[in-house]
């Protein structure tokens, strides 16, 4: 599976976590390309500050959304991604341009699930080769 993860919004990151979990349960190899807004969410200082991550839709329901996730014992998006990496061969690639836009120059600027910083050719090749290709 190849996922172009553009969004840095909490609801979409959570949806990505659920979908990637299903792929991991199926033992799929996964490549996630972390693009513009998602690259910001992957920056350490953003990811660790939960107030920085908004909802893509119905932003006025953010607290209700978070409360429901807690009640349902749903993992936070970063924990979904960590678990996916534990279960299957999953790589998270930061788009080099996206990283620079948000001031992320090196791998150390991003959360520890990040594997590398790549260019667009890596993404296009993975998208061509994947059986399933998604954009979130």
């Amino acid at each position, binding site marked *: 599976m190849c996922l172009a993860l553009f969004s840095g919004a909490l609801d979409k990151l959570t949806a990505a976590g*659920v979908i990637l*979990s*299903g792929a*991991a*349960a*199926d*033992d799929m190899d996964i490549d996630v390309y972390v693009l513009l807004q998602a690259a910001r969410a992957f920056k350490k200082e953003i990811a660790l500050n939960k107030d920085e991550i908004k909802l893509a839709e119905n932003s006025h329901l953010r607290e209700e959304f978070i409360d429901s996730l807690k009640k*349902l*014992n*749903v993992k936070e998006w970063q924990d979904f991604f960590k*678990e996916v990496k534990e*279960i299957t061969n999953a790589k998270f690639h930061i788009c080099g341009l996206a990283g620079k836009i948000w001031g992320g120059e090196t791998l150390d600027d991003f959360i520890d699930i990040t594997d590398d910083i790549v260019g667009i050719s890596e993404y296009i090749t993975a998208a061509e080769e994947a059986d399933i290709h998604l954009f979130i």
Partner: protein
Amino acid sequence: MTKEELQALTVGKSVDARGTACPGPLLEAKKAIATINSGDIMEILSADEGTKKDIPKWANKKGHEFLGIVEEPGYYKIYMKKK
């Protein structure tokens, strides 16, 4: 299998995933199946409605044998045999 037959099975592994919503039960099942032997029976306890369809589909796709579901008050017991 009938409800009585399912309840009479010797379960090698029981996974209590009642505290989690989708995809929790699926991932719990995925992790647990790796810990049992071929031919062993595993039961997954889930209070998540979607799991009733999710686990059988996953089990069949991975070559395991889905045996059936027993409905209990407030949750389900889903039975499968490891390939």
